[in-house]
């Protein structure tokens, strides 16, 4: 046996029989602390959801989805107005925010000069806008609705405007990331054939970026659907009818939950708990759709 093999064999034996350095006291304490943090974070969430589900369990029935809010038959009160209102708000929010957000991202990523001072200012502001509290967007929407001459601002248009402003930075940022992921060689190849910047974007870059854009947009919308603060500022009230257009009065699911959970009657509180689970399912559904789109259509270059 040569010297080298002997040394190697000795090292292997020592390593396998000796105490692992990953098992000393400090490591174990730290590992325990990490486990506890994880446990704490997840358990609080799980406990909350289970508690809510148990509280709401008597009301997991069809009336919850199909009935309006009722002070007479409290045990049959439902969230039809809130669910339909939230769907209307999402639709109009999407119509306003998606084209604007994608267009802004295309400008910044494909057309704007990367060195211009103006564009750098826009970039920094976009990052900051994504962190602005949602209630601020509600106030902005109130102001805009006032300028447009609406006295009563709790309508689909007002709510959608606040939510659109809220998710616009998210859409711009995720769209830019999706566009940036398209390799430059594709653009160069297009330019070299005599295509304009617009043709290159429209026919090549944008279609390649659609899965990423869709994912980001859905995640933005799923954030908007859970928001109550900006709608509160707009004064969305309780309504007992379905929205019929952008100017019809509306309520949203989070708003209705907020109102009923603070009501004194137990039946309303139970209904609110059940509605929270409905809202969670809607949000999880949208996130699942986003993940599905990402996994199904994402391209590796």
């Amino acid at each position: 046996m040569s010297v080298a093999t002997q040394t190697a064999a000795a090292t292997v034996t020592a390593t396998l029989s000796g105490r692992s350095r990953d098992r000393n006291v400090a490591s174990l304490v730290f590992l325990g602390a990490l486990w506890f943090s994880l446990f704490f974070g997840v358990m609080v969430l799980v406990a909350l959801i289970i508690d809510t589900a148990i509280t709401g369990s008597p009301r997991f029935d069809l009336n919850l989805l199909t009935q309006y809010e009722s002070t007479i038959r409290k045990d049959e009160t439902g969230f039809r107005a809130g669910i339909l209102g939230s769907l209307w708000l999402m639709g109009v929010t999407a119509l306003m925010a998606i084209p604007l957000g994608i267009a802004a991202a295309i400008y910044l990523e494909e057309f704007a000069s990367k060195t211009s001072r103006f564009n750098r200012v826009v970039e920094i502001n976009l990052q900051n806008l994504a962190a602005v509290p949602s209630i601020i967007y509600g106030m902005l929407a109130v102001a805009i609705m006032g300028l447009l001459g609406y006295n009563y601002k709790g309508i689909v248009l007002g709510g959608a405007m606040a939510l659109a402003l809220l998710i616009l930075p998210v859409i711009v940022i995720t769209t830019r990331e999706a566009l940036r992921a398209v390799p430059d060689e594709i653009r160069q190849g297009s330019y070299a054939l005599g295509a304009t910047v617009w043709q290159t974007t429209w026919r090549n870059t944008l279609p390649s970026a659609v899965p990423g854009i869709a994912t980001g947009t859905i995640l933005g919308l799923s954030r908007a659907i859970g928001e109550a603060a900006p709608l509160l500022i707009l004064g969305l009230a309780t309504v007992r009818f379905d929205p019929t257009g952008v100017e019809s009065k509306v309520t949203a699911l989070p708003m209705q939950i907020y109102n009923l959970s603070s009501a004194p009657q137990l039946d309303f509180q139970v209904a609110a708990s059940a509605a929270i689970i409905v809202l969670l399912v809607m949000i999880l559904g949208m996130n699942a759709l986003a993940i599905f789109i990402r996994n199904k259509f994402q391209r590796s270059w």
Partner: protein
Amino acid sequence: MASATSSDTFPQMGSFGDVHMHAERRLPDSPVNPVMETRDLNVYYGDFHAVHDVNLAYGRHEITAMIGPSGCGKSTVLRCLNRMNDLVAGAHVEGEVLYHGQDVYAKGVDPIAVRTQIGMVFQKPNPFPKSIYDNIAYGPRVTGMKVDNMDDLVEEALRGAALWDEVKDKLKQSAYGLSGGQQQRLCIARTIATKPDVILMDEPCSALDPIATARVEDLMLDLRNEYTIIVVTHNMQQAARVSDRTAFFTARPDETTGNRTGLLVEYDLTSTIFSNPNDKRTEDYISGRFG
């Protein structure tokens, strides 16, 4: 890489003239009625002087190779010819780039129109994430070319790039399913579909294996009958195999800043460059003593 292979190959340098595939081609010493010319071309990237005073003429239906060590500015010169350098932030060009006597950098010249006449094939095959058919049809569609029958045009372009027989049954399939060499020939087909006058190739074979390289080189020799080809290559044997004329560039470090500025050392018939170069630097490079 160049030095390793060339030192093996170049002891029999004298034989290069014999293996030269078109040794019989009788060409004038300098291009008559050149398709393209650069006159005192200087390129800057911001403050960085990338290329100094390049004067070159590219002959019609000839393959011109531009060789030289890394950083010698050959790709920069190539990208000036169809104004692809416009896309690089801070790039700035002085001097003239003449296409049939007209300066492509003159005021009022649309770079998009320039690129429809002077196509380009890149180092890494870059098919679009579309079907093979749509890859070929892309150029004619965006340039608004009048096409009687797109199917015929696609077939013609694919035949022109010697790819038709391999892909005729899967035109609607994604171009990403092709091998690297097929993708590069697809990119060449895509370029000739717009019926350009000049085809620029920026190290078209550097990402390909030797067999795919040989096929692209054969294709270049075929295409020479219809197009003017200007190719940048790191591979000196490739320049010797396919080109009619060779321009040798080198980089000269600035004494104060240390920035390397590219300049043209020698331009001549390929057979002369590889058998009897005038400049010591050319001889050193092709015999593998530097670079």
